Structures are given as C-alpha cells and as structure tokens.
C-alpha cells in the first residue's frame, strides 16, 4: 500500500495540482489538500494510459515556442480572413513534408502547430512517421512551405525533443 504513495508522473501531478488550484477559485487549505490528493490519485489511475514519457530534454524552451506559435496563430487568422473575404480564388496545394522529428508526441506538436499557423493544415502523417502531408491554402511553391516550417517550428522542436 505504501509503495503506491508515490507520484508516478511528477510533471503530470504538478500540472494537475496547478490546474486544481485555478479551478477552485483561489488557493485555500481545502483546495491544497484536495489538489494534492487528486494529483496523486489521478496519475495512479491513468498511468497505464501514458507509459512513454515524452522525451523532453529542454522543456524550458517550450514557453518561447508557444509564444511564437500564438503570435503566428493570430497572424494566420488574419491572413486566412483576408483570403476568405477577398474575391480571389485561392491556389491550394498538397505538400509532402519530410519529417526529421521521430518522437510521436513531437510529431503531433509539429502537426498541430502547422494546422494552427498560416495557410497550412496537416492532413496526414505517413505510416512510417517519416512524412507529413500538408494542405496549403494559398502557397507559391512546395519548397517555400517546407522551408518555412522547417526553420520556424521543427528546428525548435528538435531541440526540445531528442
């Protein structure tokens, strides 16, 4: 019994604890106790579902990356809005993007980023996790799209995940 009194996924526990404090409208004795309990209990239940730890090596770079993505999202929205409202027909294109990332979580993050950022939506990941199919709404050339993604998103992610 005692050996179960651990935190199998400390990061997750921490995250859950933090979220609990937000959810319970301010920090109080009760919320801390309950938060601790849940931060322990929930990973106990769910640890089977999340066995592979993400291979984070530089987690602190995440906020920077997220901030960049957030900015890009806003820009993307504006550009999509402009395109949608303009009478001009878009010139779309499917792009096959060669992946360097290997970890599935990292690939997912990249694919998500691509979908949220200007002009592109990730449509598919190849079975061997080597290629990403991207639909670009209004792109000039395939290489241009690939290069933009490579430098702007995949590089930082490569640094974070190994």
């Amino acid at each position, binding site marked *: 019994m005692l050996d179960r009194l651990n935190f199998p996924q400390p990061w997750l526990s921490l995250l*859950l604890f933090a979220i609990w404090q937000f*959810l319970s409208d301010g920090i*109080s004795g*009760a919320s801390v106790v309950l938060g601790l309990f849940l931060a322990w209990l929930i990973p106990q*239940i769910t640890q089977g579902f*999340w066995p592979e730890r993400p291979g984070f090596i530089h987690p602190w770079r995440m906020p920077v990356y997220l901030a960049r993505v957030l900015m890009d999202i806003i820009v993307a929205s504006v550009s999509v809005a402009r395109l949608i409202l303009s009478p001009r027909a878009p010139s779309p294109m499917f792009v096959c993007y060669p992946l360097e990332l290997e970890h599935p*979580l990292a690939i997912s993050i990249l694919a998500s980023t691509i979908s949220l950022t200007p002009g592109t939506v990730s449509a598919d990941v190849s079975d061997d996790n080597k290629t990403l199919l991207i639909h670009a709404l209004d792109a000039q050339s395939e290489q241009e799209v690939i290069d933009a993604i490579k430098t702007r998103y995949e590089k930082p992610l490569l640094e974070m995940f190994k």
Partner: protein
Amino acid sequence: MSLPLVVLLPFLGALAAPLFAQGGRTAIAIAASVPALIALAALYPHWQTLADGGVVLHSYPWLPQLGLSFSFRLDGLSLLFALLILLIGLLIILYARYYLKPQENVGKFYALLLCFKGSMLGIVLSSNLLLMMIFWELTSLTSFLLISFWTHKQDARRGARMALAVTGGGGLALLAGILIIGNIVGSFELDAVLAAGDQIKAHSLYPVALTLVLLGAFTKSAQFPFHFWLPHAMQAPTPVSAYLHSATMVKAGIFLMARLYPALAGTEQWFYMVSFTGMATLLIGAYVAMFKHDLKGLLAHSTVSHLGLITLLFGMGTQLAAVAAVFHVINHAIFKASLFMAAGIIDHETGTRDMRRINGLWRYMPHTATLAMVAASSMAGVPLLNGFLSKEMFFAESLQLNLPGIWAWLPPLVATLAGIFAVAYSARFIHDVFFNGKPVDLPIYPPHEPPRYMKIPVEILVFACIMVGVFPALSVGPLLYAAASATLGGEVPEYHLAILHGFNLPLFMSFAAFFGGLLMYSQRQRFFDFHARFREIDEKAVFEATVSRIASLATRFTGHIENGSLQRYAGLLVISVLAVAIAPLMNLGVFVGESGLSPVDWPTLIGIGILILCALATAALHRERFYALVLLSVVGLMVALGFARFSAPDLAMTQLSVEVVTIVLLMLALFYMPSWTPIESSTTRRLRDIAIALAAGAGMTVVTLAMLTQPFASISEFFLANSKPGGGGTNVVNVILVDFRGFDTLGEITVLAIAALGIYAMLKETALTPPPGDGLGHRWTRDAYPLMLRQIARPMLPLALMVSAYIFLRGHNLPGGGFIAGLITAVALILQYIASGMIWTQDRVPFRYHNMVGLGLLFATIAGVGSYAFGYPFLTSTFDYISWPIVGKFEVASALVFDLGVYLTVIGATLLALVSIGRLSPHSAIKSKKEGA
C-alpha cells in the same frame, strides 16, 4: 353434516381410487362402491322426515358476498334423483368392472366416474343455486373427460368436445339465468327462490331469465335443437353411456325444470317454450332412432326422444303432467340403463354394435337376449312393464292440453306418432339383434354369454322394470309421491298408480302405437329407402368443421390485425393519443393564455429556427443515415443551448454529454447496418404518416403554447427555500436529485445499470459480419489509430478526470454533480477507446465495469440506508460544516456519497454498454479478457 358428506364422499373416493388401481379391477370397483354405500346409509335416516313431507337442510356459509353458501337440501325430488344416481351408479361400477379391460386405465376411469357422481349428487342436493351451478358445470367437465376416455379415438375426442361445448355453453346461459333470478329474489337459496315464484314471474326480466335457464336445461337434456351432441357422446365406454347419457346427467336438465317448477312454470312462455321443444325432441328423437344401425345410436336417439317426452310433460304445466314426468324419469332411467348395459354386453361379446352385422344372437346368448327384450318392451310401452305406465299417463295428459282449435289435435297426434316410432325402434332392437337370421362377420365369433356378474346389474334393472310395471304403488309409490310433492311445492293432485286404468282413449292410443309400430317395423325397408333419400348430417363433422373454421377465421383475423408490424402498432399508439387528447385540446378555446407571450429575442429565435430546420431535415433526409446523425447532433446541440438559454445549466451539460455518447452509440451500430434506408412505403403511406406526425406536432405545439402562457405556482418554492438550510447545497436541481427526490435518482441509476447489464448479456452471443467498406464503395482505411489522435487523447484522460472531480465536487452548490462528472469521465475513456482501440485501452483500465456499476448502486443505496441508524427514513441526507486545521472549514454531506454512487454507475454503465458493442468488431479479439473471463 350427512348431506355434504354424501356429495363430497365421491370426490374423496375419486382421489383415493387410483391408489386401488394397483389391486386390480375388483379391488378398485369395491373401493369405488364405498362412497355410494355410505351415502345410502347416510340418506336412510332422513326418509321418515321426507315421507312426512318434510325437508332436510344442511347449510354452511361460504361466500356471502356472492350469495353462495354451502347448503344442501334433501326433499322428495332430490332423494329420487340421489337414489337413481347412487343405485344405478353402484350397478354401473359392478358392470364396468367386467366391461373394462385389465390393461385400461381403470384408476382414471373410476376416479372420473366418482367425480361425476359427486357432481351429479351436488346438483340434485344443492340448496343454493350457485352451488348447484358449480356442480352443474362440473358434470360437463367430468363427462367431457369420460366421453373422451378412449383418447386415441378421434370420434371420442370430437364427441367429447362437442358435448362440452354444448353443455358447457348451456351452463353459461344457465349461470346468467340463475344470476338474474338471484337478482330478482335477492337470494340464491332454493327456499327463497321457490317461494318467490310469483315475484319472479311478474318481473320484467322473467322472459330473459326463463330463456337462459331453459337453454341450460335443454342443452344438458339434449333437447332439440341441441340434441345432436348426445348420440355422439356414445363414443364413450358403455358404462358411461348407461350412466351419464341415459340415467343421470341428461336428466339434470329435467331435474332443473322440476326443481324450478314452482318458481318458473305456469306461464304461457313456459308452456310454449317447454312443451314445443319437448314435442319436437320427442318426435325427432323417435324418428331418427328408427334408422340408426348402431345399437347405441338407436338407444341414444331413443333417449333423446324420451327426454323430449319428459320435457313435454313438464311443459304442459299441469300438476298431473308433472307427476307423470317424474314417474317417467324413474322408468326411463331403469329401462334405458339396462338396455345400454345389454348393448354394451353385445358390443363386448361380438366386437361390434352394427345391427346389420349382429343377427340372431338369441342362439348365442339367450339370457342376455331375454333381459334386453324385456327392457326393450318396456321402452316400447308394453303393458305390465314400467314404461307402459308412465306412457299411459303421458297419453292421457296429451289429451288434456287445451290448445285452440285444430291445434288441440297436435299433442295427442305427436304422442301417438312418437309412440309408433318407439314401438318400431324397440321392435327393431329386439328383432334385428336377436333374430333376423345369422350374424354377418362378427369380429368376435361365436359370441358367448358375458361373465356372470356383468349380467347382474341388467338383471336387477329388468327386475325393477317388471316390479314397477306390476306393482307400481307398492314399489315406487311413496318415492314418487314424495318427489312429485317436492316438485309441485307441496300440492299433489289425485293420481292412481295402477296397471290399467280401464279402457279409455289413452289405452287406445297405446294400442294404436303398438300395432302401428309393429306395422311400421314390418315395412321398415320402405322407410329406410325413404330416409336414405335425405343426406345424413354428421353433426360431429359439422361441429368440427365449424370449430376449425372459427379457429382459422380467428387466426386469419388475428394475423391481419396483429400483423407483426411495429409501424402499425406504433401508429395505433400515436393515433390513440391523438384520439383521446383531441377533444380536450379542441376545448382549449384560446391558444395563448393569461400571461401572454414574452418578447422575442433574435438570437434565440435563430437558434430555434436552426433547431426546427434540422429536426425536420432529419426526418426528411433520414434515408441517408449518417447525414441524419449529423443533423441529429445539431438538434441535440441546439436543445442543450436551449436549456442553457432558459436557465438550466445542469440540463445543458447533461444533454450535451448524453447526446455525444448517444451519437457514438448510433455510429457503433450503424457500422453494421446499411448506410441507406431504402424507400419501402408507398406514397399514400408516407402521406398518411406525415399527416399523423403533423397532427402530433400540432398537438404538442398547442399544448405547449397553452401551458407556457398560463400563470403557475408549484411546490418548488419549498425546494428553493429549503435547499440550502435543509439540503446543504445551493444548486437546487442537484439537491432535488440527491436529496428531495433522491429516490428517483436511485431508480434512474438502477435503470442505467440494468440497461448496461442487459446490453452486455444480449450481445454476448451475438455475431455480426462487419461490412468491408462504406456504402459508397470505399474500403475502410488500414490506419485505425491515427497518430495525432492517439497523442492528444492520452493526456486528455487525466485532465478529464480532474475536470470530473471538479464538476463532481461543486455539483451540490454549482452546476455539475455526479451524473455530469460521470459522463465526462466516461467520454474521456471512450476517447481512449476510439483513439487507441479496445485491446490497448482495456488493458489499462484498472477496474471491471460490471463491478463499477454494482459498486455505484451499492454506494447510493448505502448512503440511503445509513440514515436508518439515526432513526431517519431511507435517503435522509445530513451535512455539516467541519473545521480542520490547515484544511480549514469545509462541508461534508452524506448526499455526496450518494452522488459518488451516481458517478460510478454512470461510468460503469456507459462503458459497459459501449464496450459491449465495440467488442463485436473483428479487431477486438479480446472477448475473454477482463470482461469476458
């Protein structure tokens, strides 16, 4: 006590009889005789009372609400019948001992015979009409079983069913008649009824009551036009025919007429109904008897005729006629029983009853022949035999009927004609059987005399024929007097029992009948030829065909209405609702009530517009099933928004979660189903359905509008006021769910649990072939678990659990609670199944859903039972605010345990259901894992 004993003993004997069956036929016959012997002994002490004109009454209360009592009455009439039943019964028992074959089921036979005897005694001894009714129907039932004793014979089965249908059906009419009489008199006790004759006859319902009672009597006593069952009942073993169909049961109808004579007779209606029925029966029975080649058939039709004779006598309505009727009951019972037994012996010894084959038996069995010839002579009305006496009385009475004009000739004419036929068929019975050349391939040849003891009953009866014929006053005088007196209610007319009453018109009629009959028999071939021109109706076949036809009509009719179409049943249901609701709704008058309409707000209106559009589109476009699901989702979403818009956050959340789970469920099912619904109904049909649907929709609209615009007050003020102080929560909906109406919630999670268990059980052995691709010709993709989905789904689970915990804990005070929390957890788990598959997920779920369902129910129930300890009723909640160091002040409510039960049940049930369906899929080869093992 002795009277109930007399009736009940045979029933007890019936229970005991099969035990004696082991001891062989003799043992059981002796055992079966015991009840009758005891009964005779029990009746003997009452004789003096009866001879003095008294009545013996034994009465015990039974069901006063019904007017039913356990009361018995012994008077002359019932004594006469009881003696017939008991004495002839004894003879029958003896006779049957030899008649039945050792390998036959004698236990069953004697048991049934005793049951019958008890029922018959019950009829004649009952002093309560309802009690009599019970025994009446019992005789129908037991006779049904006796007639069909040889169940392997088709004719026996059919004859039995026909007898049951006619006599049982008549019994129902009789029941109605008796109930009316009881209603008029205010009692079913015989004394009261017999005393209330004038009251009954004056009542407006008298004609109905009389008709119904007579229907009962006529069917039982085989009166025209219900006589047809009796000859077919002759498929019974001969002891049964002799006992039931000549001596006793068929006399029950006669008994009834005699019994109720003071209460019902003496009116024109009685006269016409009874005497004309009797006349018709008399004539038809006598006529047909002549042409029967079957020995028992002849006797059966003769019985019909004689029963008609007795009925006619009762119908005449004069006191002397009634005396004659009672007298003929005795005489007929005696000679006809002996004749049946003789016929049974002949059948027994020759193997056939066909008179065309049976000839010249005189040479083989002179003893039996002598007996039969005497009895047959009695039946023909030969002087010095008992039959002659009552027949003379009958002829005399037939002359007394004062019918108007030329009709006055009818009764004597019919009587004489019937007499002629009677002599003719009696002559046939004698001549055609015992003389008339040599036997024609008898199955048993040469015939012998039967065993000695088999003849004894016949001898006794034939002896009685002679005794009564020669010394009527001495032999039956007192009994007849007592019976007649009881029948007539005390006043007995002057009558003389003598061998001869001098040379008068009745005697002349007898002579005419005698010689006419002999003449007719000598010219029989002409009559046979004449009769052969008419097609003989086989009533049994007609009856059988009628029943079959009714049955097949019923089958067709039922099949037509109950056609197995859900559409029809559902349509009927909806139409029924419309039918009952339409009148009140039409009366609504104004559609918009007092409170009027509230102002419109456009966004809501647009939302409602979308809702209506998508609802109608779902119906209109339902054939493309997936499309219908998408539209349905929109409708569900809009409903949820509607709940939120009109102040029901809890409902909005529940609706949303349930809707998604439902859609997932529908898609799980749709996978195996055709993607398209073909058009299968005609345009008319669809138009009709549209009309029904529109009517239902219009009705709901009208009701809703009327309802929403009326001012309103409800008990909810109490909930709002007491939620916080009494229930410890500010979310009133939640407090209602877990506290005020917690019992509903317990029921509801039980429903959820049962549904899940039922689904699990139902799908356990179901195998479905999944389609190889969608309906549009695409094969399914190989990629079952897309990478992005898998990656996002996994962190979703702990987050969802966190949110569930949050929603759960705040539920008592803010929107949320066990349900919604449960559904969030369930949906998060479902997402795991969708993203990563059954095997993967199932391996990681640390609990079994079955147990979770059970545990949830258990928590909720225990939370409820807990209050017993404090002397409070089930589900009384308690809460307190507790202060702990560090933690601070917090609320503890027992309702939370209840809500935890809800939470667990919802998760367990939802997943058990979905996983059970998911397991059908070919990829989930984990049937024996976790859930299945």
